[in-house]
């Protein structure tokens, strides 16, 4: 076997799309945090560099060993999630962080990676065709961290785990009638879900349906976000020149709503560029899944692609007011060290699948 050359084996479009998104994130972050806390852009840059290094490191490891590590990571993630629930750092009304050696880490990001690995492994070792039993078992594997995350409460991230599971299970051959049953169960669960949602989550959903119900409260964010994006028009107001973001009319502008700042300052052209970069990114991920003949690698690639695709669409849809504000960051763009590194690790896993996988 010839010694694998990392540079030659990399999927460069995937790599470049990731780098472009990270770069856009840093430039937009610089503008969004000018009047907030200029250190955040620097921190984000450090995390991006760390993420790229992690990506390359992960890409050098054959993915079956990564999945082994993921299974171990799953246990750590579940333990960490329990720890967060008991002794987490409360930020913005939710306990999502755990502080280790002075770093605030978000175990839910580790949970996303690890759950993808665990689900891919579980589905790939089944000898029989995927049936009800396998679906329920794999769902249970996801349900444990998902529930723990939901209790933080972090509705957005818990739905991301569901998306990861669904992508893998769907591609692994979920029977069609189960698909229908799943859809029916979701509908049936909606009223129950409503019951267990926190007040602020209900308000967010209500406000999504009609932002006018609470224009100064929960609806404020959606209204301001739409104004922010819309006021960008064709070419935007220019970097550092968005009045909505510079004058803080837009809340959470460095995290979940950073895409709105891109819309305001770079206009339609800039916003569409970001959409296209995500299109490229996910297309390459799905291509890697498709090109891989090994079920384990294919399921894992699909799970990771579903994760990125889901978060991208839900985040952008939410800041544009077409999806409820569930609090999902935009991968590699929104502020967040754990998320940045975790996403880059996911890209590294895909590179590994491409390098070490068996192709059709």
């Amino acid at each position, binding site marked *: 076997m010839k010694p694998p050359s990392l540079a030659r084996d990399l999927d460069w479009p995937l790599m470049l799309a990731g780098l472009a998104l990270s770069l856009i994130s840093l430039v937009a972050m610089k503008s969004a945090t000018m009047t907030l806390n200029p250190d955040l852009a620097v921190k984000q840059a450090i995390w991006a560099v760390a993420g790229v290094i992690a990506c390359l490191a992960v890409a050098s490891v054959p993915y079956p060993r990564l999945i082994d590590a993921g299974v171990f990571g799953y246990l750590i993630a579940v333990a960490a999630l329990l720890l967060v629930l008991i002794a987490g750092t409360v930020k913005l009304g939710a306990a999502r962080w755990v502080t280790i050696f002075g770093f605030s880490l978000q175990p839910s990001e580790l949970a996303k990676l690890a759950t993808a690995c665990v689900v891919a492994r579980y589905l790939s070792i089944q000898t029989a065709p995927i049936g009800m039993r396998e679906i329920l078992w794999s769902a249970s594997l996801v349900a444990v961290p998902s529930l723990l995350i939901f209790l933080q409460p972090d509705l957005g991230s818990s739905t991301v785990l569901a998306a990861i599971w669904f*992508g893998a299970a*769907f591609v692994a051959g979920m029977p069609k009638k189960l698909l229908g049953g799943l859809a029916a169960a979701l509908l049936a669960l909606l009223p129950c879900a409503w019951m267990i949602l926190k007040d602020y989550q209900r308000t967010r959903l209500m406000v999504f349906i009609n932002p006018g119900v609470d224009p100064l409260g929960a609806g404020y964010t959606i209204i301001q976000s739409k104004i922010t994006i819309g006021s960008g*028009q064709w070419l935007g107001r220019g970097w550092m020149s968005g009045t909505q973001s510079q004058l803080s009319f837009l809340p959470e502008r460095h995290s979940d709503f950073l895409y709105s700042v891109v819309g305001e300052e770079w206009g339609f052209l800039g916003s569409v560029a970001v959409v296209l970069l995500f299109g490229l990114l996910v297309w390459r991920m799905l291509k890697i899944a498709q090109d891989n003949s090994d079920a384990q690698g294919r399921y894992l690639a699909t799970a990771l692609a579903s994760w990125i*695709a889901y978060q991208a669409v839900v985040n952008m849809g939410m800041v*544009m007011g*077409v999806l409820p504000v569930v609090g999902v960051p935009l991968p590699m763009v929104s502020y967040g060290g754990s998320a940045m590194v975790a996403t880059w690790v996911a890209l590294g896993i895909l590179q590994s699948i491409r390098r070490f996988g068996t192709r059709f």
Partner: protein
Amino acid sequence: MPSRLAVIHRLFVVGLAGLVLRLAQLQLIDGASYRQQAEQNRLRVIPEQAPRGMLLDREDRQLATNQTVFRVAAIPQDLPKQSGASKRTMVGSRREVFERLSRLVHVPPDELESRFEAHVTVPFLPAELVDPIPKPLALRIEEERFALPGVVVESVVSRRYPLGPVAAHVVGYLSQPSSQLFPLLKEYGVKPQDLVGRSGLEGELDPYLRGRPGGALIEVNHRARQVRVLGSRTHASGQTVRLTIDAQLQALIESQFHGRPGACVVLQPTTGEVLAMVSVPGFNPQAFADQDTKAVQAYLQDQRSPLMNRATRGVYLPGSIIKPITGAIALEQGVITRHTTFVCPGYIQFGDRRIHCWKRDGHGPVSIREALMGSCNVFFMEVGRRMGLERLRAGFLSVGLDRRTGWLLGEAAGHLPSRRLSEGEVAMLAMGQGEVLLTPLQAAVMISAIANRGWLVEPWIVKQVGEHRMERTHAVPLGWSPDTLDAIWEGMDAVVNDPHGTGIHAHSPLVRIVGKTGTAQTHVPGKTHGWFVGFCPYDKPQAAFAILSEYGGSGGDLPATIGRNLCEYLAIAGRQAVETAAVPADSP
């Protein structure tokens, strides 16, 4: 097998396409509207009031001015935090600031707190705490400003009329602009709730008095805190307007009517300056400035029309006050001489129509002097008959009848007949009855022409606007000979100073007044308007006046008395002025 991956891919692509469509809708289709909303988010205008120009009388007494009311307010964004010492200001918490302020204004700190909470709106606009405060206290608080961060002393300017109803019709009043007027004023920075001049000089000179409001355009952040000033313009105060009115004389005359409807105009006969312009009943312009709707409604509903300026807008039959003019015209036309005598048997015959003199048993043989003194109707009807309509009309027109004096305040033009008249009607016209109407202002101008020996002056009331002197004497010579004027003067002198004169009530030991009474018929049977016109002093006329008492009976009664009082006031005031001027400047 790859079909399921393709399904996921297609779902994703559909999602992205939806996002791009949504972007297009937000940024391209509705972009302009969102851009506007973004601008509204960040821009705020802070208006700055421009004080209205003052109205002063000829002696610089204030007829209309502005009162500055001081009040204490707090700017929320500049106040220290609710509790805990602020590092920057070294003045402690908001509570401590209120406690310090409390000692100055003698309002408990809790009360200040609750007022602050009640009035706070946005962080950059002051919330009222104490209103009003006396000026010394305002200065005291200003001195303590470094110990009172966020506390400001604000001044609010409001219109004041120190003399209340005096010269109300000249001054006019303010009110909010009507819906027709507002669009025209909007571009001058007038806002719908602003008060603008609506009548009198407040109305006519509004563009000069108004000034130009200033203001600042500021950029605010999401907490409505000021980020920076994008632009500002300082206000320009309105211009001070100095009038020819003597407010003391004005007040004196107003009081003399004792609330009975009437009007009076006093002119400086050689220059045309309006020394007084009275219309009774009057009103208090303060009620309009204070937006006292109850009082304003009462004025509007009052049957006696207190808001109407009778001096310029009221048209009345002149009655006998026209006789000096008829006489002057007749003398000039050569219809009579000073010595022409007609016999008044108590009536005059026109064909089969007999018109009586007011004195049924007749004045006997009268010349112009006696005819004026006794106000003989027969003499002037005979003059009218001999003169004919054309010459009489021309004469009346020459002294300003049937046309505005060229002046302001919504003046009426009066009336002269333009149709052919019968001989009897011409005769009636010559003695001021029939189809002739004039305003008290026209009567005063007319009588000024006699007082100034033959000049038709244009009255004016504005002496100075800002730095611009508006004094202008515009006079047209009537071409009357000294003989004519002497004859009329002699007759008018007799009216007041001869024991048999009809205006004997105007006789004064202090000053030699000349005049003419008039009693004009009205459409109400048995009711007459009383007139008294004249001038004083005889030697060098300084004031010509026309006084009208609506339905006031005879001109020889109340109007003549008012005439005497106003002339005596002027004589005394004039003497005082002379005495004051005679005192050396450096004496105590």
